[in-house]
């Protein structure tokens, strides 16, 4: 099966690639663009470790074919740092100790970012609702929720 040409924007950079029709967005990000922040864990859409933002919506990149994202705007954890400064969510995760093994962290932060993008002052239950899309096997949820709350209180 021949590779097909596709263009999209990743972290404000336009890219044009030739990809396999059965290639997932996660594979393209990690293996072609070397953006290894998004992780593969379950590979079946259950855990959320591969979450990235496509056209302002959080998605499981392991369940999306790259050919679906023609002309889309994609944000990954690597694009959050601006002018050498970490994103407030990244800072809060560090300050609040919301990172243990760190494997779920990129997905958690991207899910939290998409929540804050559509609702800058979510309450605790809205944060829990959003974050519950992602699994943390270190079970560090309390600190993660506190970190997101911390960002909301400062905004």
């Amino acid at each position, binding site marked *: 099966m021949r590779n097909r040409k596709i263009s999209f924007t990743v972290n404000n950079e336009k890219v044009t690639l030739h990809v396999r029709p*059965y290639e997932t967005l996660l594979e393209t990000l990690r293996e072609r663009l070397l953006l290894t922040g998004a992780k593969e864990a379950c590979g079946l859409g259950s855990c959320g470790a591969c979450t990235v933002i496509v056209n302002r919506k959080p998605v499981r990149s392991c369940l*999306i074919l790259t050919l679906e994202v023609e002309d889309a705007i994609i944000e990954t954890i690597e694009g959050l740092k601006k002018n050498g400064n970490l994103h407030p969510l990244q800072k809060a995760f560090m300050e609040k100790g919301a990172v243990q093994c760190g494997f779920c962290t990129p997905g958690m932060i991207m899910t939290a970012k998409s929540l804050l993008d559509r609702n800058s002052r979510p309450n605790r239950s809205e944060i829990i609702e959003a974050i519950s899309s992602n699994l943390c096997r270190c079970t560090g949820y309390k600190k993660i929720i506190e970190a997101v709350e911390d960002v909301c209180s400062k905004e």
Partner: protein
Amino acid sequence: MILPKLDYKKAKSLEEAIEYFEKSNGEAAYFAGGTDLIPRIKLRLRTPSLVIDLKGIEEMVGIKKTDEMYVIGANTTIFELKNSEIIRENLPTLYEACAQTSCEVLQMRGTIGGNILQDTRCLFYNKSLTWRRAKGFCYKMGGNVCHATGGKNVCYANYSSDLATALLSLGSKLVIVGKDGQRKCDFEEILTGKPEKPFNLRQGEIVKEIIIPGGKRQGAFEKIRIRGSIDYPLINGAFTMDSKGGKLVVGAIGSKPCVYSVETIEEERVKILSETVFNDLKPVNNTVVSPVYRKKMGKVIAIKLIEKTKKGA
């Protein structure tokens, strides 16, 4: 987990999607949110040579309300439904079912059409090819025996759609488009009751929209699952009531939900109804909890749903 080789085509219209399907000699799969299909392909439960993306078909998206009916495009996402004022205000059964389906991120991707057309699930079926080869293929996979029951030559896989249970209680109809044109039928009609082939759809047909009779309804939805944040139901139930009476549906046990007409919700009648539900449910050991527990919960859910609706009315 990598996908097997397959081709991808994006359809801009229903006609184009059906044309792609016809050319594939029946080897294609329609693809909307992909939250059910892609994991199945990864596990080699389905092996299409082509996936036809329906997301570009604009007429399949949206929620419309008239005095006579609600029309929901099959490509409307569960998140859009959950956040729709029309659904929240008028159809609490469907709203609650949407809120309890999967998790928020998957709700943004999963569509109502895909949800109701998801294949049946079983603890011994939704596994990797390696696992299934080692165990030996079950009845649903083309083998001779059902592993869940220890050897019967019948399949007991569960139809796990939460939205289907709610839509059945709302008396929904489906608009289906195929190469021979468009047809409209009751949702219940397309459910075969056979777990190995749960839907009575002709090859290449697409569910275009879901039609719910108009008017404001009272109702409730209940679901039991292991993790409240994201999980398939162990059992679910929906109850919807209007001035003419109510409809109780208990699902996720077996391949077709049980549907009951409820004329009155007096305490004595509800008690008899809950006993009927208990007797009708025939769960087997194909989820992570015991079948006895699921059977007992059928009775509990029936009473709880009607109580909840009474309070809300």
